[in-house]
Each structure stands twice: as structure tokens, then as C-alpha cells.
């Protein structure tokens, strides 16, 4: 038995260290350590509640739009204000653009080098002038002797299974994706001012009053992005998925999933009717249960926080707190900055797979068809349980992007109709209350996030956030039950501990 430490895990947002025990070439135990603490819950206290959404927005620069919107939704609850329909549509359109941006960035920039051997692409038979140009560009890059961010990659690893021609095509799409993800961000800026960190969604609605030209500009940019999703990213997923079908045998995880739901149903504002609806799945049973932010509880048996920061409190409780208390990194004791965050005392996986499973089982529009079609294409028709794996997580993101494109088009039609018919409500006037509580429960591309706020004396008296990483990188609980990423690593083969490509694959499927 040997301990293997991978630190840093690269190609993610944030800072992550993974330690595993390897026995006969297979992972038998695992510890996930997040190595960053900033203290949002502490410095947001006593602030003007109207400022809170700007501050909480800064939790993540890759999924900022989701944090900004969730923070505002929570504040709207405590302010007692309801945003008008048009504001909800604009927020949906910004969120949808961020989803496309994030899923494209994840599939190519963050994930592809685990599967695509760039060196092998150089020996491919380039069948088109465009592929030839990409190959020549890569060859010139390699010939320069300066491999930059590609140096020391896992090229030639026995786990790399794609033929040179597919590697070249995916390398070409990698380059194309860099352009496309910037375009999705540009569309978001039409309504948000800029990305990262849009500016247009304070409590009450949106500050932007778009013209029909703005809407058409967004639509025109996103058309190219959605075409890329449907015609490039989804086919690439099927091509890679077929070659790496053995990923269905690893990366399973805790088999408990949930999502708060994302992309609002404008008419009902019902979280169970969102495009990706709210719901939870327990113990791998293919049925959906209701779930509420009140169900979330936090513990700190293995996290560097004071005892008062855990204890099974709901983050919305008046005495919920997040006070750091660093000791040392010891996998037998405390080893991470992430709390153990649970529902019904179970470790919960969040993210695209959770959302797609809940959408499938809730029969959300489009979900059943796209998942059934994918299972057939992969040669496992009807076998949804195959998706409870690294393969399922890999496939869920591009498939979800296709559903997001559908929802975006429906929202655009609604917005155009409202603008041309003169339905022009964008903002509901409001005031900071003397006191109040609220929670914004929404999903970032990488998973569920909830922002809990409590206002007293017209100031923020308490603010606790449970972003996606709190769930997926949850530490062991009191009973020693591993968190989702830790559990997913069990059984992962490691061919070469010096080049732990398989570990990266499993961790990256969570979009850390």
C-alpha cells in the first residue's frame, strides 16, 4: 500500500489537493483537501444588505453569474420584493449564457487533456485544410521547443485511447472552443455589462432596460454558441464516450444527488418547474423526492473550523457560523477547509449529472429524449444506471447544454414578445427592511448553491453560503462516510503513480 498525493490538481477553479491510498494499482481510500479559505461569511457581516450581492458574487470567478443571482434571490426574500417577469427572463438569459460558457470551457479547456493526446494529433492524417492548418500550428508550437502549458502533460500515457485523427479533431475543437466561450460571455455582457461579474441584478429586478436590438444582439451571438454545442460538443462527447466507455465502471460516488433547480419558469416561479427542476435522489433509487434549503446541515469533524461552525446546524440558523481554526493537515483528523455538508445526514453529489438525473426522472422538457438517445448511441439503451459513473458525469454536461439552448430560445421568444407589446416592467422598487431572513437556492453549472442571509438593524447580521464545492468536496462525516469526490475515487486504477491520469479524470468529472 502506498499513499499518493496530487497537489495541485490543475485545470479547475480553486485549489485542491487529493491524497489516495493505492493497493495493487487500485485506489482504496481517498481524502479531498481544499487548500483555500477566504472568510466570506465573516467579512460580509454588518454590511449594507444592498451591497451583499456584489460581495457574495465574488465567491467564484468561473460561475459568478450564478452566485450573483442566488445572492440577490435570497435578499429579495428578506426584502419582501418580487422581481417582474422581464427581470426573471433577463436573469435566465444571463444564466443560460454562463452555462454554455462554463460547459464549453469545462469540456475542452479543463477536461480534454485527460483524454486527448496532443502529441498523437501531430501524426494524424489531416483530412481537411482546416485540420491541416491546426496540425501545422501545433507542430510549429512543438518545434519552438517551448511547450508552455502543454509541457509535462500526460502524452503517451497508456490510458490515452483515441486514434490520432480523433485527437487532432478534438485539438482543433479545443482551439475553437476558446473563441466560442468568449462569445458566450460577450452575449451575457449585453444584459450584464461585463463577464466575469455582471452588474445588472440588484434586489428588485434588473437595472438594464434592453432594446429589441440588444435582444437581437444576444440572440445572434448565442446562435453561434448553441450551434457549437449541438453540432460540435455533443458529437465530440459521443465520440469520446464511445472510446472511453470503461469510465462507466469507475467514479460512481455516493449515489445521492440533488439540485435546487435552475432557469426559472417565469409564469409559476416554481422551483420544481424550472428548466432543470429541483429534486433529490437517495441511495441510487431512480425516483425523485422534494428537497428544501432547510434540509441542509453542516458538520466539521474533519474541517479547520471551530466546533460551533458545525454541529448539524442549518446554514440559515441564527447561530450558524464559519470561524476558521487551522490545526494541521492530518488525514486521520482535520484535513480540509470544506465543511461536511449533508441532507438527511447523507453525503450528496451536485452538478450536471444530478440535474440531468432529476430532470430525466421528473420528465422535464427534452431531458428524457436526449438521455435515451445518448444511451442508445453508446450501445446501452435504457440503462440509466450506467450514468451513475464517471461516464455519466462526462456526458451530462454537454447534454445539459443542449437543454439550456432550448430553454434560452423559449425565453428569447418571450422577451421579444414582451418588448414589442410594450410590457415594460424591469424593476420593483424596494427598501432594506429592519429585519428579515431569506435564502437563494439556485444551481451554478458545477452544482447547487444556496445563499442564506439574515438582516437585523438593516444590516447583514448573518450570511452563510453553501456553494457546489461544499457538497462535492464534502469531507468525511462522523461515521467515516466519505464525501462524493472521495467516494468516487475508490476503485480507480492507477497505472503510474507518477502520472496519475485516472485520478485526474475522476476528479475533473465533478468540474471542481
Amino acid at each position, binding site marked *: 500500500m502506498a499513499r499518493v498525493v*496530487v*497537489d*495541485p*490538481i*490543475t*485545470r*479547475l477553479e480553486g*485549489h485542491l*489537493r487529493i491524497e489516495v491510498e493505492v493497493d495493487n494499482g487500485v485506489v482504496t481510500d481517498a481524502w479531498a483537501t481544499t*487548500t*483555500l*479559505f*477566504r*472568510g*466570506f461569511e*465573516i*467579512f460580509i457581516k454588518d454590511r*449594507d444588505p444592498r*451591497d451583499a450581492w456584489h*460581495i457574495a458574487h*465574488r465567491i467564484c*470567478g*468561473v460561475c*459568478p453569474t450564478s452566485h450573483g443571482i442566488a445572492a440577490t434571490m435570497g435578499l429579495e426574500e428578506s426584502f419582501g420584493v418580487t422581481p417582474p417577469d422581464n427581470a426573471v427572463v433577463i436573469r435566465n438569459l444571463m444564466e443560460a449564457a454562463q452555462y454554455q460558457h462554463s460547459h464549453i470551457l469545462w469540456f475542452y*479547456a*479543463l477536461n480534454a487533456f485527460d483524454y486527448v493526446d496532443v502529441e498523437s494529433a501531430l501524426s494524424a492524417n489531416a483530412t481537411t485544410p482546416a485540420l491541416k492548418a491546426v496540425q501545422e*500550428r501545433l507542430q*510549429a*508550437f512543438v518545434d*519552438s521547443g517551448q511547450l*508552455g*502549458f502543454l*509541457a*509535462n*502533460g500526460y502524452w503517451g500515457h497508456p490510458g490515452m485511447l483515441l486514434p490520432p485523427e480523433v485527437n487532432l479533431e478534438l485539438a482543433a475543437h479545443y*482551439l475553437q472552443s*476558446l473563441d466560442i466561450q*468568449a462569445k458566450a460571455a460577450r452575449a451575457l*455582457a*449585453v*444584459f*450584464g*455589462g*461585463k*463577464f*466575469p*461579474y*455582471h*452588474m*445588472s441584478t*440588484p434586489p428588485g429586478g434588473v*437595472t438594464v432596460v434592453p432594446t429589441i436590438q440588444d435582444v437581437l*444582439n444576444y440572440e445572434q451571438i448565442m446562435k453561434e454558441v448553441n450551434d457549437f454545442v449541438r453540432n460540435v460538443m455533443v458529437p465530440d462527447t459521443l465520440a469520446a464516450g464511445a472510446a472511453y466507455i470503461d469510465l462507466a465502471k469507475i467514479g460512481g460516488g455516493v449515489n445521492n444527488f440533488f439540485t435546487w433547480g435552475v432557469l426559472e419558469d417565469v409564469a409559476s416561479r416554481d422551483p420544481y418547474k424550472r428548466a432543470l427542476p429541483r429534486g433529490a435522489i437517495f441511495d441510487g433509487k431512480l425516483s425523485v423526492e422534494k428537497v428544501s434549503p432547510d434540509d441542509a446541515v453542516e458538520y466539521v469533524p474533519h474541517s479547520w473550523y471551530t466546533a460551533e461552525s458545525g454541529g448539524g446546524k442549518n446554514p440559515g440558523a441564527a447561530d450558524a457560523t464559519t470561524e*476558521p481554526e*487551522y490545526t494541521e493537515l492530518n488525514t486521520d483528523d482535520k484535513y480540509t477547509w470544506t465543511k461536511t455538508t449533508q441532507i438527511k445526514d447523507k453525503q450528496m453529489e451536485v452538478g450536471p449529472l444530478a440535474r440531468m438525473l432529476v430532470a430525466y426522472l421528473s420528465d422535464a422538457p427534452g431531458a428524457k429524449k436526449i438521455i435515451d438517445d445518448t444511451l442508445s448511441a453508446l450501445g446501452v439503451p435504457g440503462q440509466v444506471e450506467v450514468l451513475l459513473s464517471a461516464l455519466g458525469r462526462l456526458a451530462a454536461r454537454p447534454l445539459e447544454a443542449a437543454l439550456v439552448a432550448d430553454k434560452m430560445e423559449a425565453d428569447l421568444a418571450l422577451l421579444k414578445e414582451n418588448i414589442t407589446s410594450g410590457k415594460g*416592467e*424591469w424593476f420593483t*422598487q424596494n427598501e432594506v427592511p429592519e429585519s428579515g431572513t431569506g435564502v437563494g437556492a439556485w444551481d451554478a453549472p458545477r452544482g447547487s448553491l444556496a445563499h442564506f442571509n439574515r438582516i437585523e438593524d438593516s444590516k447583514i447580521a448573518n450570511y452563510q453560503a453553501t456553494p457546489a464545492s461544499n457538497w462535492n468536496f464534502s469531507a468525511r462525516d462522523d461515521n467515516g462516510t466519505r464525501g462524493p469526490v472521495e467516494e468516487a475515487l475508490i476503485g480507480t486504477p492507477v497505472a503510474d503513480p*507518477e502520472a*496519475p491520469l485516472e485520478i485526474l479524470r475522476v476528479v475533473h468529472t465533478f468540474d471542481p
Partner: protein
Amino acid sequence: MQLDISRRDFLKLCGGTAAMLGLSQAWVPQIARALEQAAERPPVIWLAFQGCSGCLESLAKAAYPDIATIVLDVISLNYVDVLMAPSGKRAEKSLEDTVAAGGYITIVEGAVATGIPEAMTIAGKTSEEIVKEVTAGGAATVCVGTCSSYGGVQAMRPNPTGAKGVGEVIGEDKVINVPGCPANPDTMVSTIVSYLLFGKAPELDSRGRPTFAFSQKIHDHCERRAHFDSGHYVEEYGSEEETKGYCLYKMGCKGPETHSPCPLTLWNSKQNWCIGCGNGCIGCMEPDFWDEFAGFYDTLPDTPIPGFVGVKTSADYVGSTLVTATVAGIGIHAIASAAKGRFKEADDAGEGSDD
């Protein structure tokens, strides 16, 4: 240097840089020549500490040149945790090899945790240890974003982790600060290219910011400025006044006190900017803006309203003339020198210089 990008994109880069630096387009051929004649792409180490990856995300939205051109053709980005192929020991090898070779530019995103050093570690080292080790041997250190420049969001009162800007840790005279939350991609690219071209930091203000970008205030070039001067204000979101593009001063806009080139650079391929979407500026390019400008929706005190005591003049406005003169006096060096570490200022030559 092998420049395998299309000529048109490359000239856009040179043109954009010239404009940003206050140079006329007549400089474009000289900038292009200097970049092309370099023997190798300058090595760059991107360190990410207490932050959110938002500044790298912002750079990835650069239009001229795009991020693929930047990482394949302009610089050699040898260490960047968000994008690099290897992890763990192999990633650390990329860092160690680059540091050993010297002559690199260090770009830092995120703050350094000094109060609780273990609040930010990579490969078992604290951010303070890493930043000191890596920057000591480099040719230059560029801090992108308000976090690495001044501490940023986590340095808000009461700053629970003792977050500090890089300059506070290694010396304010050793850094170029490109603040913003996030930093603007055009400003980041122009600062780096300017450094590569002229072999030294551009002229900096008292807070370490390049004057070519930060000498003017949002208010000086705001598209809504005429409405400020005419006394036309938005007083409610979603109102008729917003559709007319009236001034956001009364809604709390911090533009009158914020040094930033935003009205000129804009964001996301010049698609829009904060004020363009109807929310006032929150001052994200100013040091300590999270505390100093808290109450983002409160009207800024002490800004004279036109027609009352007259329009406030921009006493600290610096035109492009000064910068142009400085640049002309230096002349353009070949970029190859940067890669070999000759670009260190005379007073600290010897540390990390290999020639």
C-alpha cells in the same frame, strides 16, 4: 519568435496596444517588428492565490489577440493552474524548471494570506512562501486584479485571513498593479506587451498602476457624462430616465472617484460595460474599494453637482502626451532580451539575471 497567427490578428494586437499606450498607429510596424524579431516567446508564470480565477477568466475573454493566440504565439505560459496539462509533481516541475531558467514574468492573481498562512497553500507551501520564492528570480511581477494588487475582497474589514496584496509582501517597488474586479483584458495585455517592448515597467502612479490606463477617471470619459453636466439623472431603476441613458450618479455611481480606462476599453469585445447596463460603477479598480466605497447604492458625497458649484475639473487628468514622450525616449528593444532576463532595472540587476 514563431508567429503563426494570422497577420491580421497580430496587427490588431499591435494596433490595440499602440492605442492603449497613447501611441499613434504609425507605431504599429515598429511594435510588430519588435515582437516578431524575438528569438523566443517570453516565459510567464501565472500564480493564483486567494481569489476566484476571475482575472484569468477575464484574460480568456480578450479579443485582440484572443487567448489561444496569447498562449500559443505571444508568450510561453509555463505555469498556470487553471489551464496547464500536468498536475501534481509534473506541474511543480514546470514551475521549478521555469524558475531555474530565470528571465520570466510572474503574473499573480489573488491575495497572499499572511494572518492564517495555511488559508492558501499549493503543494504544501503557503502563498507567502511561494510568492517570495518565485518573484525573487523573475524579470518582473505583474499583479492582475484588485486582490493581488491590494488584497481585494478577502482583505475587507476585518480581513480574517490577513490577506495582502503582493506589493505589501515583496515590496511595492517590485510590482506593476493592474487592479480591477476582474482586471480588464485589454489593460492586462497592454501592460504586458508594453513591458516586453520597452524592457521596463511603464510609468506607474503612486499605487503602482500604469498611468497609461489609470490616470483618468471613469467620469472623464463616461458616455453618460453629458447628462451629469446637464443635471439629468436616473432616480429609479427601470425608469424612463434609464431608457434615455441619464447619469447614474444619484444611484450611487462611483465613477467620479474611480481611476479606470473602462469607458475606453469597455468589456467583452467592447460589447458593453457596467454603466452601460444601468448599474453605477462600484469602483472596483480603486485600492480598498470594498471598504472605502461601501454603500454602493448611496450617492457619493462631495462631488459638486453642475449648476450648483460648477463641474468638478479633473485636476489629475494626464493626457497621452507625457506617456508618448516617455515611450519615444526609450525606443523599442527587441523582445528577445526580455526572455534572457536583461530587463531588470539596473538597481536590482544580479538577482536572477543570467547574463
